[in-house]
């Protein structure tokens, strides 16, 4: 796809300045046009000038009427017309209109002469009587002398007014041309802006399309990679199980100590590889967005035992894993994924620290399972790279290396379980990693217990000792689920029977009373079955919490 260059900033700035200049010029032109129109309409002085001439004629007419009739009414009319004519003359020089009229009289003197005459006439009018007809005729004669000059004054005003109107008309025409030019420029600028906007929109659309295509390609490549990873993990697990099975059989046979150690080492490496493959399988599912966690009851002590077995090296270098006494035995969660989290983290930690200095303790705080790794204060522990653990190198996928693989899988699983990983130092200076994953207790309103023993006396003792409001002993034929199966290991231990029991009560907790012949069938072992107190607290207590 052809790359489209974005509109340069300086071009946009120039367009903005041009638009601002056009707007300013347009505003000034409109303002001038408005002023021109105002001047045109306000400069109508002709009316005022002609009115003065009209009032002179009216005064002249009223005076002529007085000369012919000699009545008091005619005299009153004459005086009133005299005052009105005076009011016209007095307007000259007052206000904007008066100033303009005086300007026309400057160098001509018609109004000034009229004012002088009226000033002389004022006392005459005041003393005039109805019978003074001769005086009235004389006034008429005098007024006729002013008529011609006043007419010429009016013509001066007409000429000046016409010229002024012409000038204003020219200004308006010029203003209109300017406005038309500005409008044309504005339209042109708008068209250019529209073209620029359309081009920019088209460019953005192209970029979006390109990005969408790249994203789809990347997503497809990622899915293909994840699918390949999943398939490979799956395919690798099958032959690996084929190796681990014979190794387990080999471990059960009589072997010299040296060979047994080699077999155990091979088993441990195989288990480690199996976990890694499981982790990769989960990671692939997470990448594809189809990863799901189970929420099933599991035993915390069993989880701890499995992690201990996974992380322990040779027999003399057992990894320390503990469960806080107040931790509920049964919890909801995905046991297998939790096991992976702690195994991956533990393995990563032990790459930098002495195995014996590392310890993992489980607890239950609020509504979360907490697993806390504590490890040494030695220099190696402090120089240990925590970035992969905290996900700080996640943004650079090309930097993923073999040593960051385990923390990456662990962090992905913690995130999927909505958990939190915290790195801190305790008050003794020991560094620690705490993982908290939301969970909840498995609570039973009533615990249904099945006791499997051949000894009626022992059965009576246990039933008497453990029976309470929350504990109900049920027979094997009773309907409903069984929560706890107590097996008298001293009389029953045959694998066949245990397999049948396990099959019949798949969800129950199996506790061996005494050391069993096959520990693998049991979830917990009470070594001293006569110690009823221990039995009640360690098994029933956790189960019922």
């Amino acid at each position: 796809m052809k790359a489209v260059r974005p509109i340069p900033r300086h071009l946009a700035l120039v367009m903005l300045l041009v638009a601002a200049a056009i707007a300013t010029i347009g505003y000034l032109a409109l303002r001038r046009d408005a002023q021109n129109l105002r001047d045109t309409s306000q400069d109508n002085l002709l009316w005022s000038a002609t009115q003065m001439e009209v009032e002179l004629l009216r005064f002249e007419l009223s005076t002529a009427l007085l000369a012919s009739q000699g009545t008091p009414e005619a005299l009153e009319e004459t005086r009133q017309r005299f005052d009105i004519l005076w009011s016209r003359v007095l307007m000259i020089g007052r206000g904007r209109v008066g100033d303009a009229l005086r300007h026309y009289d400057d160098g001509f003197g018609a109004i000034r002469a009229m004012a002088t005459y009226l000033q002389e006439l004022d006392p005459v009018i005041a003393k005039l009587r109805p019978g003074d007809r001769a005086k009235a005729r004389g006034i008429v004669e005098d007024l006729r002398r002013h008529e011609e000059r006043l007419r010429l004054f009016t013509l001066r005003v007409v000429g000046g007014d016409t010229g002024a109107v012409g000038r204003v008309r020219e200004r308006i025409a010029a203003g209109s041309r300017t406005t038309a030019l500005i409008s044309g420029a504005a339209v042109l600028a708008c068209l250019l802006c529209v073209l620029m906007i359309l081009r920019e929109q088209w460019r953005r659309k192209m970029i979006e399309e390109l990005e969408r295509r790249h994203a789809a390609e990347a997503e497809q490549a990622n899915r293909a990679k994840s699918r390949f990873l999943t398939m490979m993990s799956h395919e690798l697990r099958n032959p690996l199980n084929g190796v681990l099975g014979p190794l387990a059989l080999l471990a059960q046979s009589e072997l010299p100590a040296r060979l047994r150690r080699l077999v155990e080492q091979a088993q441990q490496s195989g288990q480690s590889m199996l976990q890694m493959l499981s982790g990769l399988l989960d990671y692939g599912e997470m990448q594809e967005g189809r990863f799901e966690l189970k929420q099933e009851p599991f035993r915390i002590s069993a989880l701890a035992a499995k992690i201990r077995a996974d992380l322990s090296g040779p027999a003399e270098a057992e990894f320390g894993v503990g469960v806080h006494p107040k931790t509920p035995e049964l919890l909801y969660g995905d046991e297998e994924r939790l096991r992976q989290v702690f195994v991956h983290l533990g393995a990563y930690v032990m790459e930098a620290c002495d195995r014996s200095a590392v310890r993992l303790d489980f607890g239950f705080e609020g509504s979360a399972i907490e697993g806390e790794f504590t490890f040494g204060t030695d220099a190696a522990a402090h120089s240990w790279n925590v970035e992969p653990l905290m996900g700080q190198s996640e943004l650079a996928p090309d930097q993923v290396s073999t040593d960051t693989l385990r923390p990456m899988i662990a962090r992905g699983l913690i995130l999927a379980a909505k958990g939190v990983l915290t790195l801190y130092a305790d008050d003794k200076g020991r560094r620690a990693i705490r993982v908290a994953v939301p969970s909840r207790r498995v609570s039973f309103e009533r615990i249904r217990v099945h006791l499997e023993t051949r000894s009626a006396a022992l059965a009576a003792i246990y039933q008497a000792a453990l029976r309470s409001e929350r504990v109900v002993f049920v027979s094997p034929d009773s309907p409903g689920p069984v929560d706890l199966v107590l097996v008298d290991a001293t009389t029953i231990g045959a694998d066949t029977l245990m397999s049948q029991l396990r099959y019949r009560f798949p969800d129950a907790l199996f506790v061996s009373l005494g050391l069993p012949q096959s520990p693998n069938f049991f979830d917990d072992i009470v070594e001293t079955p006569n110690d009823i107190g221990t039995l009640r607290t360690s098994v029933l207590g956790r189960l019922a919490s």
Partner: protein
Amino acid sequence: MPSFRLKGRHSAEAALLVALCARAPMAAGGDPALVLARGPVKMELSFRDLDALPKRTIVTGNDFSDGEVAYRGPLVRDVLARLALDRSETVRLLAANDYAIDIPTSDFVTYDVILAMEADGHALSLRDLGPLWLMYPISDHAELRDPAYSSRLIWQVIRIETP
């Protein structure tokens, strides 16, 4: 009857004219100051009648005076109300010099238009464009600085009627 005098002027020339032309107060005799007419019904108002109405002072400039002048007189809407002329949409005002103009009565509701009887404390005479000069508060409202309103400043008002 109130006495009428020429109001003060600013230019020297005008001052001279005023001084020379000042004369005794206009004798109104029995003539009414203002006639209100609504169809066949007429009402004559004397200066005493107009003087008895509440008065308003507006300080404003116009095209026919220098600077701002304090005009004082009754509100036109109060005068019109004497003969219910304010119910008409338009009234016609006539001047002693036969000038006439029609003005919408809404103007008198929107603005405090007065029939000015005094200017800067002096009664207006016929020579001062009085004794009654319709005055808008032009300086208080920008929209009134328009030729349309300037032409409504009718002076020497003698009659108001329905058109």
